C-alpha cells in the first residue's frame, strides 16, 4: 500500500509548495488532504488515517502542537499513529525541544536537501513499522509529553481566586476549593464540590497560573486537583477513568497522561 500524507499549513502558497516538493522528493507518497488549521487537521487525520502528517506550528485557533496532542489522545486503538513532522518558520522555544526529543521538523523556507533527508528518515520509519513496529506508541507519547511540557516563555504568578462573572455578579471562587477545570469551547468550567462556574479563558492561559503539584493535567481539556481523585481505573485502550471525592461524575484521563497513575 502506498504511503499517504496530510498537510496542515495555513498559508495557501506554502501548502501548495510543500505538496509540489513532496511529489518530487517522494513520488510514491499520496497527499490525501491539505488543510489550513489545526482542528481540520485533527478531523481529517482521524478520518483518513494518513501515514504521515506535516503540521505547521503556528496556525489559527489550534496550533500544530495542540493538533498533535489531540491526535495522540483521540487516535483509535490498534492502528499506528501517523508519523509527525512539524513545520515552522522560526521558533526559538520549540526547535531545541524538537532536537532534544528527536522529533522530525522542517524549517521554512524548506530547501530540497533538507526535505530529501526528512523523506529518507520517514521512509525508514515506515519500513520499520511494516516489518514489525519497533516504534511503540508509548515512545511517541513520551516524546509528545516532553514537547508539550517545554518551558513556557512567560511564567505567570499563581492564581489564588477565580473571578467568575454572571450578569452583574462576580463570584469569587478560591482556587483551593476547585476540584477540576474542564475546557468547554471558549470557556472553562470551574467545578467545586458544591457548584460550577464558567470563565472566559483557555486552559493554555490558565495552566501556567496553577501549581502543577496540586493540579494535574490529565487530558488536553481537563485539569484535576490530584488530592480530589479517589480512584483511577485503567481500561484496555489506555484511558484512565477517575472518580472524585465529593462528586458523582466520572472523568476520563487520556493515554497521554495515563503514566501519572501507577501504584507506588
Amino acid at each position: 500500500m502506498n504511503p499517504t500524507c496530510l498537510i496542515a499549513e495555513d498559508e495557501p502558497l506554502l501548502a501548495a509548495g510543500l505538496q509540489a516538493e513532496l511529489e518530487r522528493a517522494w513520488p510514491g507518497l499520496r497527499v490525501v488532504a491539505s488543510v489550513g488549521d489545526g482542528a481540520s487537521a485533527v478531523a481529517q487525520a482521524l478520518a483518513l488515517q494518513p501515514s504521515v502528517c506535516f503540521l505547521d506550528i503556528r496556525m489559527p485557533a489550534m496550533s500544530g502542537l495542540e493538533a498533535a496532542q489531540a491526535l495522540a489522545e483521540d487516535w483509535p486503538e490498534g492502528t499506528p499513529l501517523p508519523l509527525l513532522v512539524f513545520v515552522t518558520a522560526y521558533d526559538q522555544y520549540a526547535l531545541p525541544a524538537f532536537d532534544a526529543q528527536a522529533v522530525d521538523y522542517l524549517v521554512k523556507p524548506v530547501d530540497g536537501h533538507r526535505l530529501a533527508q526528512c523523506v529518507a528518515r520517514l521512509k525508514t520509519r515506515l519500513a520499520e513499522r511494516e516489518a514489525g513496529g519497533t516504534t511503540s506508541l508509548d515512545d511517541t507519547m513520551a516524546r509528545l509529553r516532553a514537547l508539550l511540557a517545554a518551558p513556557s516563555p512567560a511564567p505567570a504568578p499563581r492564581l489564588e481566586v477565580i473571578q467568575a462573572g454572571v450578569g452583574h455578579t462576580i463570584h469569587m471562587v478560591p482556587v483551593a476549593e476547585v476540584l477540576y477545570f474542564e475546557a468547554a469551547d471558549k470557556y472553562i468550567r470551574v467545578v467545586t464540590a458544591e457548584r460550577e462556574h464558567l470563565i472566559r479563558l483557555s486552559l493554555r492561559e490558565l495552566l501556567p497560573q496553577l501549581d502543577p503539584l496540586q493540579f494535574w493535567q490529565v487530558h488536553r481539556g481537563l485539569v484535576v486537583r490530584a488530592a480530589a481523585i479517589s480512584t483511577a481505573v485503567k481500561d484496555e485502550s489506555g484511558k484512565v477513568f477517575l472518580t472524585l471525592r465529593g462528586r458523582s461524575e466520572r472523568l476520563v484521563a487520556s493515554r497521554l497522561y495515563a503514566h501519572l497513575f501507577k501504584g507506588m
Partner: protein
Amino acid sequence: MLPAPTMLPPPAPSLSPASVAVWIWHELRLGLPLCTAVALALSLAAGGQFLAHLIYSLCIGLSIQFAIEAGRYGIAAWRRRRDPGGTEANPHWPGWGWMAPWVVLSTVGGYLFGAYLGGLLIGAGHRADPLSAGPRGLAAVMLMSLGVAVAATYFFYSRVRLATTEARAEATRRAAAETQLMLLQSQLEPHMLFNTLANLRVLIGIDPARAQAMLDRLIGFLRATLEASRAGAHPLRAEFDRVADYLALMQVRMGPRLAVRIDLPDDLRDLPVPPLLLQPLVENCIQHGLEPKLEGGRIELGARRLGDRLQLTVRDTGIGLGQAPASAGTGFGLAQVRERLAALFGERATFVLEAAADAEGGSRARIELPIARTST
C-alpha cells in the same frame, strides 16, 4: 520589556594580586618620574649628590603619595559606609572638601617620615638631608612638595572623573543601541521574515512575475524599516505606502484570509508624520487579531483631519483585544508607539487602543497628532 538604562558602576576595587599589581604600577608610573625630576632639580640647584637626592626624593615623594592615596580610598570608603546611597559620582573620590586638608596633612607627615627614612638609609646629617637645611630651606622644599602633591592629586582626580564620565557615556550608548536593536527585531520579526521568504521561494517556481512584485514589496519594507530610525519625518502618503507594502506581503501569505482597505484623503497626503509609526499597530492587528482567527478578516487604515489635528486609525475585524494568549506578545510594539509619540509631541498627541464598537468586532487603534504649521 525595555531594560532600564542602567548606570555602570565604576570598577570596584577587587583584591586579586593582578589588580593590586596594576594599581601599584599606576601609582608608580606617576610617582617615580616625579621623584626623579625633583631629585634632578635639587642636585642641579644644590650641586652634585644626585643619588643621595634621589633616595631622599623617593622616600619622601612615595611616602606622601602613599599617605594621600591611603586617605583618598580610606575616607571615600568610610563615607560610603556612613551614607551608602551617597551622591558622589565616583566611589573612590571623597571630594575636594576632604581631600584639600588631607593633602596638606599628608605632605607634612609624609615629608617628615620620608626624610627620616632617607636618613636611616644613607646616614643622618648627610648634605642632601633636607632636615638639615635650616628653616628657610625646609619651608621652600616643603612648599615644593606640596605643589607636586596637589598637582599629582589633581591628576588622579581628573583621571578618575574622566573614567566615570566615559563609563556613563558608554552605558547610555549601550542602552540606546539596545533599544534600537529591539526596535529592529520587533520590525524584522523572524517568523514574518522567513515565512515571507518561504512564500517567495514557492512563487519563484510557479509565478515569476508575481514573485518579482512580492520581492519589490519586501525590498520596500526592508529599506523603510532600516531607514525609519534615521529620518525624522516623512509624508503621510509614504507612511501609507510602506504599510501597504507590508500588508501586500501579508496578503500573499494569508491569501483570501486578509482583506485590506486604505483610505487616505488627497489633502492629507503630504502631512509629515514620524516614519513607520503605524507599522507596530498594523503588525499587532495581524498577529493578535487576524492570524489567530480561522476565517481571517479585514484591516482598515484611515486618516482624517479634525481641525488642526490629524487622526490616524488602524482597525481590524480580528478576534478582539485580550483574546490572544497572554504570552503571545511582549507589548513592545504598543509601548514603542506611546514612547515615540510622547518624545515627539508630549501631551499634544494621544493614542487609544480599544475594542471596535460595531458588530464586526476586532480592535481599533486611534492616534491624534497636532498638524505641523510648516506643512501646507
